């Protein structure tokens, strides 16, 4: 066993370093074992099998197919809905978080925090029901809008279209933005605003020179997380559409269900791997930015 460099400088004799190694790692083994078996193993297997052809030989064909229709559109649409739903929810969510966290009384803040948690997790069939009831053809809000002269169903709109999905996605993206962005607002110390004023800065100056520069990275990070959330959403899209919109999560779901069979049996795995890569492009920068921001956000 190679001697490990461990704090305290254990002598690098075989037996001693084995004990130090175990002491350093052993208590974490149950956790690591569970994560390893139930998480890492499936992911590695996914990646491995995605390179397997039907005859169990190595191939890139699965990935080639992912770049063809209809999967290409699937990725395009999924990325689009991720970006758009994030874009629409980000600024309102940030503004709402600002007013709530900086001016709301404690009980309000806590209630909103809990509510946002529940709402951010809402999806699938229950969410679809709520929107059918509100904005469906027979929906309450639809009727009200019609009364005021706006028939939203006059064109080709329905909740199962891209625009419809976007509106519904907003329902959980907005609370998610509030949850993810609020800590940055909370971390803005009152002393900074006061010091800025004392040094001659108007409110506007404070925001331009101090407030916004500090909040901006967290804002971008939150946007990235919202993108990943919109991109990966399955249940809600599944409940609202009838298969006429190409979205990657739905395509994978179809392949898993057996409702759709592809000639390449491992196509779904390849789709999954590409999903992971796209998601990683958003989530990893999110994590990196949050880590950096933590330096000044420490209370």
């Amino acid at each position, binding site marked *: 066993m190679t001697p*490990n460099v*461990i704090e305290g400088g254990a002598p690098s004799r075989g037996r001693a370093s084995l004990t130090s190694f175990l002491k*350093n*790692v052993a*208590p*974490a083994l*149950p*956790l*690591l074992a*569970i*994560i390893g078996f*139930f*998480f890492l*193993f499936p*992911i590695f*297997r996914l990646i491995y099998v995605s390179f397997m052809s039907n005859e169990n030989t190595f191939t890139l064909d699965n990935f080639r197919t992912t770049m063809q229709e209809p999967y290409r559109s699937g990725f395009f649409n999924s990325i689009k809905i991720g970006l758009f739903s994030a874009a629409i929810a980000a600024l309102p969510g940030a503004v709402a978080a600002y*007013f709530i966290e900086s*001016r709301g009384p404690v*009980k*309000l803040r*806590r*209630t909103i925090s*809990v*509510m946002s*948690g*529940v*709402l951010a*997790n809402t*999806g*699938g*069939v*229950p*969410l679809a*029901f*709520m*929107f*059918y*009831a509100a*904005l469906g053809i027979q929906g*309450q*809000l639809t009727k009200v809008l019609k009364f005021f002269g706006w028939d939203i169903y006059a064109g080709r709109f329905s909740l199962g279209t891209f625009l419809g999905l976007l509106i519904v996605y907003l*329902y959980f993206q907005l609370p998610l933005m509030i949850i993810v962005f609020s800590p940055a607002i909370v971390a803005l110390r*009152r002393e900074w605003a006061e010091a800025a004023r004392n040094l001659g800065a108007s409110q506007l100056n404070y925001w331009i020179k101090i407030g916004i520069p500090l909040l901006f990275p967290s804002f971008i990070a939150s946007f990235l997380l919202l993108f990943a959330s919109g*991109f*990966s959403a*399955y249940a809600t899209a599944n409940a609202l559409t009838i298969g006429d919109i190409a979205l990657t*999560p739905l395509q*994978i*779901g179809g392949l*898993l*269900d057996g409702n759709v069979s592809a000639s390449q049996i491992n196509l779904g*795995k390849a789709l*999954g*791997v590409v*999903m*992971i890569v796209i*998601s*990683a492009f958003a*989530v990893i920068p999110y994590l990196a930015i949050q880590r950096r921001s933590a330096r000044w956000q420490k*209370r």
Partner: protein
Amino acid sequence: MKRKFDLPLTITLAVLALFVFIPMLSAFEFSIRTPVKGGYGWDQYLWAIREEEFFYYIIRSGWLAALTVLITLIVLVPTMTWLHLSKSTIRPFVDGISLLPLVIPVVAFAVGAQISFPEFVQDTVLELPFLYFVLALPYAYRTLDIGLNSIPLKTLTEAARSAGANWWRTIITVIIPVIKSAVVGTVAITFALSLGEYTLTVLLHWDTFPTWVTYVAQENILGAIAISMMSLIIPFLVLTALTLIAPERSTQGRK
């Protein structure tokens, strides 16, 4: 102290309230319709509760969620306490790994899970709590991490140990009470996530309360709406009540 009416805040709250409650109330209105008799009634709710599968699935989901919470607490609390105390070199590694599930879309994970587990694991619904544990890990880990950071862990542990407590007693009787709010937060997040988990569950062909609701929708849409309402509003009310009742803990010192 500002006593004057805060217009921007009020407007924000009003807009949010409209946005959140219009869909909810619309669906609620649908759910209390009684098409046969005309007018309104609780018929759908009564029907739902009388369905024998209703309680079966609630208990099933509740049980799975409870198991997930149990796994989370038993595995995370001791391990993280140790990580914080021992200054182990693998701590950054574990910190990083705990965030990994955030990177992986649930759909992709479902594909991987489907092809990975041997028969005996796949056949038992007990695979779900462990999978839910993985899904909730980033949030649970972070909540506990913050909690453990905010207490004088080393001092407390040394005090307990020198008074004669062994490791388990120390954790149960000293550490957990001190990080109570973090533990409660972890339990809440893990429980809520497990109860509501749909994607992974349905793609792996398991039945829980959320998947059952989808199934009911094919036969009795109004009934399904009623059930959905219950599954939304009840946790909502319970959590809000808990929040308002809980003693105010000033973690931020706003003078």
